[in-house]
């Protein structure tokens, strides 16, 4: 097993150095690269995002929203960094079509999960609930908490409605079902990695993402422990 890992590491090191720079290197270089590239998984640079209006933003489809707290969404194009540029469609747990752009104007806390998950997802949802409780009232009243399921087969809108009841999730929680295309695209936008396992469950990144009113990622908490104060601060800071 150790040999395998070394090989994997070697491949990483080689690729991060050579492929992303655009040159396929000789296998012989593998070993010499090892000590220089201790963190190969992180070396794909995140694209620098410029603040400018995208000429290509999808037409925002404004649907009915909670009248009490939603800022009115206008027809202006989404910003260049806005996740709401994606045109993928989801269905909420009431069975209604839902596009992410409908969240425009509200602070969003978004996590990908699956309802039958036995380990991390219950903790992630508990953390989101704890986060919600931490928020100053005026932030909490505007915020929306979104759960999007990896499990396109089992987490139907009805299954998500059951999950909502089991977890006592109030009206400011949005539970979304999507097809494989939609889920894969959202995961790619968030940087979430996932994979269905032989038994039907999913390996997945544990990631809580905060979006501002424009749908831009302003904060991500990775892992399962701590960091909620920073997440709450990120939500409170955006006004």
């Amino acid at each position: 097993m150790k040999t395998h890992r070394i090989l994997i590491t070697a491949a990483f090191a080689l690729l991060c150095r050579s492929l992303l720079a655009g040159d396929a290197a000789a296998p012989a270089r593998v070993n010499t690269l090892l000590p220089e590239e201790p963190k190969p998984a992180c070396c794909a640079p995140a694209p620098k995002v410029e603040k400018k209006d995208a000429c290509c933003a999808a037409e925002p489809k404004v649907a009915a929203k909670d009248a009490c707290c939603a800022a009115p969404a206008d027809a202006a194009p989404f910003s260049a960094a806005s996740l709401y540029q994606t045109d993928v469609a989801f269905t909420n747990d009431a069975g209604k079509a839902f596009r992410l752009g409908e969240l425009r104007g509200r602070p969003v806390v978004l996590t990908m999960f699956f309802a039958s998950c036995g380990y991390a997802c219950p903790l992630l949802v508990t953390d989101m609930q704890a986060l919600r409780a931490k928020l100053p009232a005026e932030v909490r009243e505007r915020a929306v908490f979104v759960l999007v399921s990896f499990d396109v087969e089992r987490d139907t809108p009805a299954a998500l409605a059951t999950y909502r009841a089991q977890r006592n999730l109030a009206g400011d929680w949005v539970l979304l079902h999507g097809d494989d295309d939609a889920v894969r695209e959202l995961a790619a936008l968030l940087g979430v990695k996932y994979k269905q396992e032989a038994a039907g469950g999913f390996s997945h990144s544990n990631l809580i993402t905060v979006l501002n009113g424009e749908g831009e990622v302003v904060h991500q908490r990775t892992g399962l422990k701590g960091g909620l104060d920073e997440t709450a601060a990120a939500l409170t800071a955006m006004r």
Partner: protein
Amino acid sequence: MKLRHHLSLLVAVLALSSATAVLGAGDLAGMRTIPAGTYEPLLRTKLDAPQVPVPAFLLDERPVSNADYLAFVTANPKWRRSQVSPLFADKSYLQHWAGDLEPGPAAPPDAPVVRVSWFAARAYARWAGKRLPTTAEWELAAAAGYDRPDGRNDEAMKRDLYAWLARPVPAVLGDPANLRPNLHGVRGLHGLVWEWVDDFNTAMVTGESRADNGIDRDLFCGAGSVGASDTTDYAAFMRAALRSSLKAPNTTTSLGFRCARGAAPLTASTP
């Protein structure tokens, strides 16, 4: 990956027959049938199936070319270099093209298009009425030798593959027509560029492959230690590593794509 042995054949037959029924022969031009088979993931944890059945599907005979991609950006202005959103493609997107609608000398019409992001590749596939192949599909197609189903025993193919890996990426890529087709009639799976797959963002190998300690375990739900089924398949290691190092907006000078159609991906809900 859910095992659906008994269903896969039926699904494959239905998908292919409906594909051929709906499309004219011209629409299938340039695609080859990859017969149903079994993909053995190179890297897997104890939670992954050792063998994944893959229904038959259609795969482009060659990677998407600059000429193909020019037609796409001509029809879809938001994917032109000057207009693409930074959310969907990084700064090196189509940088080797002479202009928005002018591939130019560094991007010959028949050469594979590179410097395209996963989002762009997906959008092209959708526009073309196709989709990106899954990892399982791509690897199954690429596992064939020139004249036999298992390329691992094809010395000629292995020689060509490793010769390619040892060469730097040329400034101007060649025409895949010059590459020998594999058993399924598909060209250039090895030998020209790396290719995007639809599910590149699987939770397989990142930090946890080398350090399965508590901290890393918290980053992934279900992450176990990763083992390899065939440690001699160096090229497959490289592909797995490349996929896991990429982010969806990334583009590189050696990364292109080709499209598939037919049987749905195993993880998709049944249509």
